[in-house]
């Protein structure tokens, strides 16, 4: 796995949940599509391990933030599709604003020069 390019970023604790929730916002998806979407959208910087993805999905389901049902995929196979629940949508809003604040704070500290330039 390590021989793939480009080198990937380690997931920060708690980031996967918000990424999954965000990925599900446009509509229901199955596990594999969620993983691929995160990978592609992050320009392959983030690789979701299956060993983290499914525990995370089931954990979100146990918390009632996503709901799952068996439906036919676009290729006609039965797949377990996850969709956001109203509570999940709320959670996404909360977590998203937290992460934006956090990443802004990180940016401010790591790049003080840019800040001064402004």
């Amino acid at each position, binding site marked *: *796995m390590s021989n793939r390019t480009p080198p990937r970023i380690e997931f920060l604790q708690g980031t996967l949940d918000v990424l999954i929730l965000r990925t599900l916002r446009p509509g229901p998806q*199955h*596990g*594999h*599509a969620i993983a*691929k979407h995160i990978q592609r959208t992050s320009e392959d910087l983030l690789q979701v*391990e*299956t*060993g983290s993805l*499914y*525990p*995370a999905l*089931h*954990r979100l*389901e*146990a*918390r*009632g933030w996503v709901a799952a049902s*068996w439906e036919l*995929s676009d*290729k006609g*196979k*039965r*797949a*377990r599709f996850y969709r956001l629940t109203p509570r999940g949508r709320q959670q996404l809003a909360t977590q998203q604003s937290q992460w934006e604040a956090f990443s802004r704070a990180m940016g401010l500290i790591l790049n003080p020069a840019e800040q001064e330039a402004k």
Partner: protein
Amino acid sequence: MNTFFRKLAWFAQRRRKEQQLAAELQFHLEEEAEELQTAGLAQDEARRAARQELGNVGLIQDDTRAAWGWPLAEQFLQDLRYAARKILRSPGFTLVATLTLALGIGANTAIFSFLDALLMRSLPVADPESLVVLNWHSRPPQEGSKEWVHVIHGVQGILWPGDKGAMVSGMFPYGAFETLREENPVFSTLFGYFNGRNRNLAVRGQAASASAEYVTGGYFRGLAVSPAAGRLIDSEDDRPGAAPVAVISFATSQNLFGGPPNAIGQSILVDNIPFTVIGVAPPEFFGVDPAVAPDLPSVAHESARRRRRSGSYV
């Protein structure tokens, strides 16, 4: 609470979830393989790569199961299974351990049941809380003074030390009992009894050892017990010159006479003194001392008088 019930419902349909998770991972595997194939890999190579990408399926399933909640219950079941396997593997040790536990628990239970009846339970009478036991406290004897002597001497087990060298006894002289009964401002009924073990009980020429309780006339009125048959001893039976009468236990009435009604009017010998059975106590009644369950819960006053030397326990 919501989460709890959701987890509970899940626990019930655990099996189905296991199968679904396996199917879900299988779908992931196929999807990945298909995608790799589209990217140009050969079919079996794509499969192998997909499986490699998926990683350790057992581990994923374990981690996912943990997300379902109740890993504690799960672990507990595992522990149980492990314990069962261990136990089956060494039956000798198991036998010894089980026997040790069984004997220990059994002995404790037996002792507790006994002490429970003796110390904790109330007597099976109408109003057990209203009963009190009187004890005789005598100050320590002083040299040369005749007023300071103990009321009872030398009977093993019925004297015990009280405060400041005083002696305490549950035994009263019959005269003292009579005085207390006549000048009694406090109690609604005052009665005395005396336990007698190993009495010689003779019925129709057949002798047996029995335990008896010698009681005064107020005994059954004081305890508010109703007879299973016949009548119970009352103060009329306590008069000087009254005929000696006995009340027998429910079990004894069945063993000796074939039932409570048949026992009434029968004559029995207790230590060679003839008594007439006038009544049968209710089945649950065993006298006032749980340590001794008398076969004849009560033999009337006449014998109590005869036993005046020993006094009456009030």
